[in-house]
C-alpha cells in the first residue's frame, strides 16, 4: 500500500492561517504582529473589499520591506474612508495628493528616497502607490504609464471594484460589460455598460515590459501576498491589480465579498496571473470551474440579466469573455499554476 506522497495540511494555503504550517510558511495576515497598516475605525462600508485588499497588500508590503514603506494614495473611497480629518487609519507614512497623479507622486517619493540614500541620509525605504480603478485606469492612467515607462522604483497597486463607487457608482473603464452603473443604466437596446469598451490595464502594463505585472483577488490571500512579496523583492516599476468586490456598487451582500471575488476567478471572468518583463509567467488555475452565471446572478448590477426573460444572449457573451480569458491565460492548465 503506497503512502500518500503529497504533503497535506488540511486547508493548505487556502485559509488565512494554518497552524499546521511552519511559522515561516504562514501568511502575513495570520501573524499576530501584522502591522494592520489600515487600522480599525476606518469608515469603509460593511464588507468593503477595498479595505480588506488594502490591508492585505500593504501589510504584505510592510512585511516584505521590513516596515520601511511609504504609500501614495489616489483620491477615492480608500482615501476618503481612511483619512477624514481628524482621524487616519493608516499606520504607515502615507500621502494623498490628487485623483490622477498617484503614480507620479510615488515617483517623486522614490526619487527623494534614492537621493537621501545616496547621500547617506536615509535607508532603503520602498514606495507603493495605490488607487481605485478610476484613479488608475482612467484619470491616473497618464501618470501610471509615465511611471511604467521610466521604470521608476514603485509598486503600483490598483484596487479594482469596477467603477467610481465613491462618487455614487458611475462607470469607469474597468466597469465590466453589461453592468449597471449610475451612468450605464439598464435601459434601451443595450442595457448596462456596453460590450466592446473598457480596458484591462494589467495587459497594458505588460505592454510596458516592466519587471512585474500581476493580478490578484481578495479571495486568494496567499496568492496576493506572494505577489506583493515577489514584487517587493524586485526593483523598478511593478503593477498589481487586485479585484475587490464592492457591496455598494455591485449590489451584493456584505458577507459575500470574498465569495464573489472567488467566483470571479473560478468563472474565469477575472484572470489571476503573473507576468515578468511583458511575458506571462504564471496563472492561478481555476480550481472548481463555474459558469459566469453563478458570478453574475448574486449581483444587483446584473439583475437586469435575470428578469422574467433572462438575457441568455448577453450572458452567453459574458461567458465568451470568460472563456477567452481561460484560453488566453491558460486558466484551466494546472501545470501552469504556481
Amino acid at each position, binding site marked *: 500500500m503506497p503512502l500518500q506522497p503529497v504533503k497535506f495540511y488540511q486547508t493548505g494555503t487556502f485559509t488565512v492561517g494554518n497552524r499546521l504550517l511552519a511559522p515561516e510558511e504562514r501568511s502575513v495576515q495570520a501573524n499576530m504582529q501584522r502591522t494592520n497598516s489600515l487600522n480599525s475605525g476606518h469608515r469603509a462600508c460593511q464588507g468593503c473589499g477595498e479595505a480588506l485588499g488594502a490591508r492585505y497588500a500593504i501589510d504584505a508590503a510592510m512585511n516584505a520591506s521590513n516596515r520601511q514603506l511609504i504609500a501614495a494614495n489616489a483620491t477615492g473611497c480608500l482615501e476618503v474612508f481612511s483619512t477624514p480629518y481628524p482621524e487616519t487609519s493608516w499606520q504607515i507614512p502615507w500621502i494623498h495628493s490628487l485623483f*490622477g497623479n498617484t503614480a507620479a507622486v510615488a515617483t517623486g517619493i522614490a*526619487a527623494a528616497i534614492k*537621493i537621501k540614500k545616496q547621500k547617506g541620509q536615509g535607508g532603503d525605504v520602498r514606495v507603493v502607490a495605490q488607487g481605485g480603478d478610476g484613479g488608475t485606469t482612467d484619470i491616473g492612467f497618464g501618470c501610471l504609464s509615465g511611471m511604467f515607462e*521610466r521604470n521608476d522604483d514603485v509598486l503600483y497597486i490598483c484596487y479594482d471594484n469596477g467603477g467610481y463607487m465613491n462618487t455614487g457608482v458611475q462607470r469607469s473603464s474597468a466597469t465590466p460589460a453589461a453592468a449597471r452603473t449610475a451612468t450605464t443604466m439598464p435601459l434601451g437596446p443595450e442595457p448596462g455598460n456596453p460590450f466592446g469598451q473598457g480596458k484591462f490595464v494589467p495587459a497594458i502594463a505588460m505592454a510596458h515590459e516592466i519587471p512585474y505585472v500581476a493580478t490578484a483577488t481578495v479571495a486568494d490571500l496567499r496568492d496576493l501576498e506572494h505577489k506583493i512579496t515577489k514584487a517587493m523583492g524586485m526593483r523598478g516599476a511593478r503593477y498589481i491589480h487586485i479585484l475587490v468586490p464592492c457591496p455598494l456598487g455591485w449590489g451584493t451582500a456584505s458577507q459575500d465579498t470574498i465569495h464573489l471575488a472567488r467566483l470571479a476567478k473560478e468563472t474565469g471572468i477575472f484572470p489571476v496571473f503573473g507576468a515578468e518583463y511583458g511575458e506571462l509567467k504564471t496563472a492561478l488555475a481555476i480550481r472548481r470551474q463555474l459558469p459566469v452565471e453563478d458570478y453574475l446572478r448574486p449581483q444587483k448590477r446584473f439583475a437586469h440579466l435575470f428578469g422574467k426573460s433572462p438575457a441568455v444572449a448577453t450572458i452567453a457573451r459574458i461567458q465568451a469573455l470568460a472563456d477567452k480569458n481561460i484560453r488566453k491565460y491558460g486558466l484551466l492548465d494546472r501545470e501552469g499554476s504556481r
Partner: protein
Amino acid sequence: MLKQCEGSHAVAEAVALCRPEVICAYPISPQTHIVEGLGEMCKSGELHDCEFINVESEFAAMSVAIGSSATGARTYTATASQGLLFMVEAVYNASGLGLPIVMTVANRAIGAPINIWNDHSDSLSQRDCGWIQLFAETNQEALDLHIQAFKLAEELSLPVMVCMDGFILTHAYERVDMPTQAQVDAFLPPYEPRQVLDPAEPVSIGAMVGPEAFMEVRYLAHAKQMQALERIPQLAEEFKAVFGRDIGGLTHTYRGEGAETMVVAMGSVLGTIKDVVDEMRDAGHKIGVLGITSFRPFPLDAVGAALKNCKRFVVLEKSLAVGIGGIVATNVRMAVTGMGLKGYTVVAGLGGRAITKKSLYGLFEKAGRSELAPLTFLDLDWEVVNRQLERERQTRRSGPAAESMLRDLGTVASKIA
C-alpha cells in the same frame, strides 16, 4: 563671478548651486533651456546627488515634485503657459499640503490662440493658488530670486514660483554675477522639512478636511503668506549681506521722489519703463516707477506707501482679466483704497506684442495730463478689431476671429482666397 550667459542658463546654474535633490521636467517653450541646462549638469555629474526625471506631463512634473518634497527632498521644476495650466490641480495641491517646491515660470501667453510669446497670463491665472509669486526684472534678479526662493519656501513650508519673462529674459544673453557655491551654502541651509514621509515617524499627509476645519486651514494658508510679507524683505537684507546685491524684497521704487505719476509694473518691462521715465524726468515730468517683485503675497502696505504721495498711477500689466480689465491693477487699487488717487490700467504686451519706448512715452504723457482712459490696451489695432466686430454683428457665423483678423492684416491673405 561675472559671466555672460543666457538667462535660462543663469537660472539653471543658480538652481544647481541651491543643491536641489529632485528636478522634474517636461519641456515647454520658453522654459526648455533651464531644464535642459539642469539635465545636462545632472548627467555630467556637475550637479550630483540630484535625481533628474523626465516626466510625461506638467501634471506629472508637479506631482513628482509633491512626492519628492513630501519625502524631504529639495525639489525644483519649471514650466510655462499651457504647462502651468495643465498642472494647476497639482499646483494648488502642493501649496495646500505646504510643500516648499520652487518652480520657475517662464512667463508666456495662454491659448487659444496658441502663442509661445511672453506675457503674464499664466502666472497671474494662478494668483490664488496659494504659492508665493516673485517676478524678476532682470536675469540677475531671476538668478538671485531662485536662491532666495528656496530659503523662503523651506522656512515657511510654502511653494514659491519665480516668474521670469519668457524669451525676453530666458533667452536673453546678459552679464550676470554668478554666486559661488560657498556663498549659496552660507545663505541657504540644508532643507529641514516641516513634515516628512518617514517610516520612523509615520504621518498621514493630505487628509480630507470637512466644513468643521476647512475655513481654518484656508485662513492658515493666508496667515502664512502674511508671514512671508515680513520675511521677504528680511531675506533680501540677508541676501545682500552675503552676496552684496540688493535683490528681492517686496517692491522697488525708482525715481519716486516727488513723482506725481507713478507707473506700476512687474517683470522685465520695468527696464523699458525705467528708460522712458529717465527720459521723461529729463524732460521735467514728475514721474516715477514702482516695481512689484512679490505679487503673492501682495504687499498692500508697501504699495500703498510707495504711491501715497503721487497724484495718479498707471498700472502697466502683461495680463488681462477678460471682462474686467487688469489683474495687477485691481490689486494695486486695493492698496491705495481711500487715498483719492487716480488709477489707470494699461494692458500691454500680450502674447509678446512689443512694448516700445515710444508708445510708453506717449502713454505716460497722456496719463500725466489725466487724459488716459481708465482701461487702455496699448498699441491695439483698432481697425482690425472694429472690422471683426462689425463682421460678427452682420453674420452669425463669421468664421474664426483670429484667422479673419490675420486676413485683414494681410498676413495670410495671399494664401486664402
